[in-house]
């Protein structure tokens, strides 16, 4: 499972590294693909809050907010590390984390190579196996939930 290679992308943009970094972060709403977001209503805008610990999230038209992850490293204009915490169940899960590393390498005053690596993808496999394991094993968490429900209902009556 850990042999899963990261997704690696590279693009050369004909702008300075400063501008590339700014458009990638502050300007994320301008380029973020809208049709693939995880919320229940159409996407209104996407925000990456500047600085380490900043939220990366989307606001839907119905006002709800969907988290994507956090800013882990913020080193303008050369490096950005974001956590991507969307599970295979298409839910934000703070306990689940994959990393998106973005490097901005100045090739010239108006030329920047942007490389993006989305890594730790094997965790999707681990999560799937864990879910499977939990459900399958006798006395797994489903049983715990049933027990919880039984106790909760008993307490009420």
């Amino acid at each position: 499972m850990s042999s899963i290679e990261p997704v690696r992308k590279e693009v050369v943009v004909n702008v300075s590294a400063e501008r590339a970094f700014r458009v990638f972060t502050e300007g994320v709403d301008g380029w973020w693909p809208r049709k693939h977001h995880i919320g229940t209503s159409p996407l209104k805008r996407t925000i990456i809050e500047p600085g380490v610990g900043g939220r990366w999230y989307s606001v839907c038209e119905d006002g709800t907010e969907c988290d994507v992850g956090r800013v882990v490293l913020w080193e303008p204009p050369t490096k950005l590390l974001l956590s991507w915490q969307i599970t295979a169940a298409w839910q934000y899960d703070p306990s689940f984390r994959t990393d998106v590393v973005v490097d901005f390498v100045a090739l010239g005053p108006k030329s920047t190579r942007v490389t993006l690596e989305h890594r730790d993808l094997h965790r999707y496999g681990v999560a799937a196996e864990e879910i499977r394991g939990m459900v399958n094993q006798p006395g797994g968490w489903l049983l715990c939930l049933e027990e919880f429900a039984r106790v909760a209902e008993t307490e009420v009556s």
Partner: protein
Amino acid sequence: MANSRAASRNLDGFAALSDPTRRLVFERIARRPQPVGRLAEGLAVTRPAVSQHLKVLKDAGLVAVEARGTLRVYRLDPKGVEAMKNYLDRFWDEALSAFKEVAEAEENEA
């Protein structure tokens, strides 16, 4: 990018999850393996419609089916990691080409 077969598989996985109902079915399976009958419960679609969604998800390599006694239980495909990776691969392709366009358009305006 890999060969054209892998590319078409990407498209399949990508397209498979663009339908909101299908994504809901996929999410439910991701949370818990279950048979088609239970999947159809609580969804505002007919059981044949759910079966149709399952077929698309299965063809896209996102879910797999296994027999448990007389039940056919749907669960995430063990190769689902690959499917997820393919999805993200295509997602970032699209995102970065839009990023380039926006970055350079702003540069021209400046």
